[in-house]
């Protein structure tokens, strides 16, 4: 799940600091996240009883989590009845093995993929390519980042960090289009990608997609998209593999409808995405299209352990609308790559901390100002800041996180001993009233020097309590004098 590129969650702090200095990246992100937020805002303004629908979607997701084992068994039975072959994968390696096995079994030379975060999580493409299979991402944004050799940087907009001119330059180089101008319009660029991909769809032996919702009642897999590439990936090739993380189940089609009423509105500000595919088993006798063989891979990869934690399991409610990323001031500033793992932004910091080895993710819960924009935006009511605080606590308990350092520990100690506290602040005020020395004290985070460079630090003044006491004495004397 760690990206194959040079970004890693271990270097989250350094990567974010660096990204925030990239003015071009910040401008692109600012434009894109504002665009998404404005579209979403308009869609929700026009959505009568918005909160009621949010609550219904949350309820559908809570039902899924509270009945997960039972619903997954039901899903397996219904899907099998519909003719889908169901596979269980404990971890990423097992999922890769299952899918490369299916590819080899059908002699796949060319694989087309619909956009999915889960296949990024299990690093499927390199595994397929290692067996000599050609793999093509068919979502426009994914196609762009694949050509660029980069990981996606947003859950629903993988190439959000690229400007139109970046894409034109990339297509010029990678698609051999020497005449392509930097000023090419988005429809022109889209048409070029479409021409390149059309051949791949027709040649593909296998289509691989993720899953937005799997319906336990019917064994159906539901996929939402806007470009039609998922529809093509699931119907053109003779074999289709859908990969889901186990929490993506819904009890019934009704629950799925409750989710579908909210997901596109929150993600892209659409009432409904341009395509919604409901796939129940392979092509049946007499049907004109559809895969002849369909597979469903159900992946755990650490999630059942998260489900067992009564507080943190809330993170599994997420249906990946990506709205928390767009609303997060930190994401808006550093983008997705800085997080160093597949999932970025507030939900990414949570999921990566929960699913990756703890020693790789100790900084992730701290890259947050706790402003709560994500929580206010999340249609499912996930309280990201609260969960991140819990992760900070857990990191500290296991000695993983940076200890809060001398400064914080000293502050806590002193605040429990009011007399010592007053003496310490009094001494500091006598020695360094303007806090000039403070940034250079040993044991304090190095960031304090930077903080002091850009902001005027406050000075230590005569304490409020002493001033209040003086004022009240004066008032008392006045009253006595006047009486």
């Amino acid at each position, binding site marked *: 799940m760690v990206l194959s590129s040079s970004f890693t969650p271990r270097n989250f*702090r350094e990567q*974010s*600091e660096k990204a*925030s*200095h990239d003015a071009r990246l910040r401008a692109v992100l600012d434009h894109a996240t504002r665009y998404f937020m404005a579209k979403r805002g308009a869609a929700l303004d026009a959505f009568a009883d918005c909160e009621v629908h949010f609550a219904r979607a949350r309820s559908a997701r809570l039902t899924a989590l509270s009945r997960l084992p039972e619903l997954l068994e039901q899903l397996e039975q219904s899907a099998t009845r519909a003719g889908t072959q169901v596979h269980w994968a404990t971890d990423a390696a097992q999922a890769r093995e299952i899918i490369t096995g299916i590819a080899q079994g059908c002699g796949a030379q060319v694989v087309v993929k619909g956009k999915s975060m889960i296949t990024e999580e299990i690093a499927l493409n390199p595994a397929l390519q290692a067996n000599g299979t050609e793999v093509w991402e068919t979502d426009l944004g994914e196609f762009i980042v694949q050509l660029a050799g980069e990981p996606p940087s947003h859950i629903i907009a993988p190439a959000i960090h690229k400007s139109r001119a970046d894409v034109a330059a990339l297509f010029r180089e990678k698609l051999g289009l020497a005449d392509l101008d930097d000023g090419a319009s988005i429809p022109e660029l889209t048409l070029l990608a479409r021409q390149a991909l059309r051949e791949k769809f027709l040649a593909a032996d296998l289509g691989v997609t993720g899953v937005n919702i799997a319906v336990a009642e019917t064994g159906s897999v539901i996929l939402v998209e806007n470009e039609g590439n998922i529809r093509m990936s699931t119907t053109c090739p003779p074999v289709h593999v859908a990969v889901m993380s186990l929490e993506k189940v819904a009890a019934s089609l009704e629950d799925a409808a409750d989710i579908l009423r909210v997901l596109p509105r929150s993600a892209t500000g659409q009432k409904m995405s341009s395509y919604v595919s409901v796939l129940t088993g392979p092509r049946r006798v007499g049907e004109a299209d559809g895969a002849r063989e369909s597979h469903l891979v159900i992946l755990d990869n650490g999630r059942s352990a998260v489900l067992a934690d009564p507080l943190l399991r809330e993170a599994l409610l997420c249906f990946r609308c990506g709205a928390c990323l767009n609303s997060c*001031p*930190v994401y808006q*500033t*550093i983008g997705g790559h800085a997080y160093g793992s597949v999932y970025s932004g507030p939900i990414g910091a949570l999921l990566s901390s929960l699913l990756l080895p703890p020693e790789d993710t100790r*900084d992730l*819960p*701290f*890259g*947050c*100002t*706790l*402003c*709560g*924009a994500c929580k*206010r935006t999340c249609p499912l009511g996930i309280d990201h800041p609260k969960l991140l*605080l819990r*992760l*900070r*606590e*857990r*990191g*500290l*308990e296991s000695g993983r*996180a940076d200890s*809060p350092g001398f400064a*914080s*520990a000293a*502050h*806590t100690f*002193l*605040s*429990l001993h*009011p007399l010592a*506290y007053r003496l310490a*602040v009094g001494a500091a005020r006598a020695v360094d009233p303007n806090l000039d020395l403070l940034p250079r004290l040993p044991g304090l*985070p190095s*960031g*304090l020097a*930077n*903080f002091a460079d*850009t*902001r*005027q*630090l*406050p*000075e*230590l*003044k*005569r*304490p*409020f*309590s002493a*001033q*209040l006491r003086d*004022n009240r004495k004066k008032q008392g004397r006045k009253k006595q004098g006047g009486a």
Partner: protein
Amino acid sequence: MRIKLMIPCLVEDCLPEIGLAVVSVLERLGVGVDHPQGQTCCGQMAFKTGDAAGARAQALRSLDLFAGTDPVVCPSGSCTKMLRTYPELFPPGTPDHARALNLAGRVFEFCAFVLALPGAPDFGAQLNARAALHRSCQLDGSEAPQKLLSAVRGLTLLEPERPERCCGFGGLFSLQFPAVSESLLEDKAHELLALDPDILVSAEPSCLMNIGGYLARLGRAGRPVRALHAAQLLDLALKGALTGGASWS
């Protein structure tokens, strides 16, 4: 009516003028103010760094300091929120949990408290100035500062393009991620200065220190922006009302 005043550590030692303004406003509006001695920190710093044990020990001190039935008033959204978080630190059913619930139910952010006083929101305060309001994400979407300050006569209350956006402080965050923090602050300062204000006003002392400190460093030719807590602004405006309206120059 009497209240107990909860003073954030930042206000006690660095921004005491905020505390004095709070007392002045409350007393002028007929509220008796007790300031329990021995206050240090509400435990927010420990809590936000993941040190639940430290936060719990500090919470116990606060539970003793603010025991009783009087309302507790605090001129900080984030400290108010911390006091309201105390019940999470103790197991339900224990006496400390009950005390924490009791306290959480009677702690008020300064603006919200004043807004609930008889005669609110128009206390006849007057101040002729342009004030840019930073709502502060720490107030959890409370509209009390806007409502309270909108009623000040002569005051043009302005809000930046993205009023709820974080100023980038985040306590420890500003030390661990200084460049990201500064980028956010830069955005915030830019949006606030675009309003051409005389005053930056907020109900959150930490944001005020962060943004005010940056604006001071940045400087603005000829006309510095003065950073004021809502209580300080209201105090000036209430005093101004006596002289027919203080003017900003």
